[in-house]
């Protein structure tokens, strides 16, 4: 963990070498992704609710998904750009160091520019929390923390799974984006508003539902079963096989010429 922060420091130092470029990218990221939230606000300007979910409820799920996604993009960006790592041969270098491989991959790239989206998601999250009609008792707070945690874990597992794909065909394909970006866009809404088939996919195949739907129902007192509080933790079960597949794939690794 200490090593992780040392790496962060190095990355921060590198990024600050280009201060103006850093500042401009940071601001532009902020503005571009504000567009997402703006769409929702416009949508709810016409309709007061979607299948029983109000604007702030949707904004809450939206910001939780954005939080997990941008958290991984900021702090574990190396796994998102894993195909580059293999193609330019950096991965060989990581194999030559006496440290955990996956950890080294995570920290190989850290993007502080993406932190702009992270901050944005936190702002929206706070706004929705203030405006939601929820009494914030202990169990509700725990549920929310679990949701945020699960969001990070889920995206992390998806990124790892997508990265493992590179071991089987050197260049990662767009297939991964179906699950990351595509899934992300769907999951930004409470998945209950979609047809049954989608709900099935996003519950059992990629458990987005456990990040922001089932616990959400508890949060909004639509369900009272306590099991919904810990439902987000199911994502951990999803992380374990992803890590195993990654290491299985690593055994097949065949490097690139120099």
């Amino acid at each position, binding site marked *: 963990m200490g090593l992780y922060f040392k790496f962060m420091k190095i990355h921060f130092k590198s990024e600050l070498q280009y201060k103006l470029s850093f500042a401009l990218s940071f601001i532009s990221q902020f503005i571009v992704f504000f567009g997402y939230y703006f769409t929702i606000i416009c949508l709810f300007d016409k309709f007061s609710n979607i299948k029983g979910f109000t604007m702030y409820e949707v904004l809450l799920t939206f910001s939780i998904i954005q939080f997990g996604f941008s958290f991984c993009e900021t702090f574990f960006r190396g796994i998102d750009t894993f195909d580059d790592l293999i193609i330019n041969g*950096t991965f060989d270098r990581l194999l030559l160091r006496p440290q955990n491989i996956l950890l080294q991959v995570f920290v190989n790239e850290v993007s502080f520019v993406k932190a702009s989206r992270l901050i944005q998601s936190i702002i929206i999250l706070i706004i929705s929390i203030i405006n939601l009609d929820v009494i914030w008792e202990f169990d509700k707070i725990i549920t929310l923390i679990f949701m945020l945690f699960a969001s990070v874990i889920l995206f992390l597992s998806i990124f790892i799974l997508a990265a493992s794909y590179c071991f089987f065909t050197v260049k990662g394909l767009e297939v991964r984006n179906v699950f990351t970006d595509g899934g992300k866009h769907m999951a930004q809404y409470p998945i209950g508003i979609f047809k049954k088939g989608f709900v099935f996919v996003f519950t059992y195949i990629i458990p987005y539902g456990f990040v922001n739907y089932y616990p959400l129902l508890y949060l909004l007192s639509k369900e009272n079963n306590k099991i919904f509080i810990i439902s987000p933790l199911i994502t951990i079960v999803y992380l374990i096989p992803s890590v195993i597949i990654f290491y299985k794939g690593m055994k097949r690794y065949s490097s690139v010429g120099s």
Partner: protein
Amino acid sequence: MSFIEVKHINKTFKVPVKSNGRFSTLKTFFNRKYNYIKAINDISFSIKKGEIVGYIGPNGAGKSTTIKMLSGILVPDSGNIIIDKMIPWKDRKKYVSKIGVVFGQRSQLWWDIPAIDSFNLLKDIYKLNDKEYEKTLNELIELLNLKDIINIPVRNLSLGNRMKCEIAASLIHRPKILFLDEPTIGLDAVSKKIVREFIKKINKQNKVTVILTTHDMADIEALAKRIILIGKGKLLYDGSLNLLKKKYDYLRKITVISKDKLKIEEDYVIQQKNIENGIEFIIDIRKIEINEFIKLLSSKISISDIDIDNGNIDELIVKLYEDFKI
């Protein structure tokens, strides 16, 4: 048992076949065909502790692949590698803390920050204690004369200075074995000399075993008493450079400047040519010693100048490659 023991290793790569024509990209997407290329074909050798070995061969011979297998990045399809009682790819963490690797064409330093920051991070990666690290760092700074360059962002360094930092970075954890993959590529004469002398020094002082690949035969002449030559994945020669020279480097070009004319018809003269103001001989030194030949010349003609071409090692290698048909 030897320090480094390589036995009958093989490695085959699967390379997708590219085809041309309409929709070929689409076709290959669904139905890929592969070529199987045998990169390493039954190679065995052993290396003693403290040796410097030059690992040479033409492009694509399998040099880098071997280095990658020796350093544990790649796993051979069959065969055994045991280095310092470890199997590189099985005891990865333990093994890599004992070796240093320099890829001449790839950097391990962070591009935008001074090298000293990279060194400090490596200290944490290798879990070195402060005292040990300070000592090694100061030693390296002194030996490679890095004092003025480690505080400049790496991207602003010249290639020669960068390579010095690269080598220092790979030695910061005091490895027992150093792998150098084309360490002098693209360097100027002065930097090359510094790098070579440094490699010699750490080999002698710290008993570091060095394995280097290179295309620059002057590297080999300066450093390695022993060479391993491979071509198309096969081991072609393993032994001393001198022996190889004796075997393949037997032609000398002798140019004499003289007003006299002379024709020698003996079997040791391979070729004879009259040039503007003298004669050019190519002789076979296995059949006659050079001083004998010069004696013979001076007894027959008056010589105003003489030049003996000492057989370029590059030509020797070209001859070798031709001989082995690689």
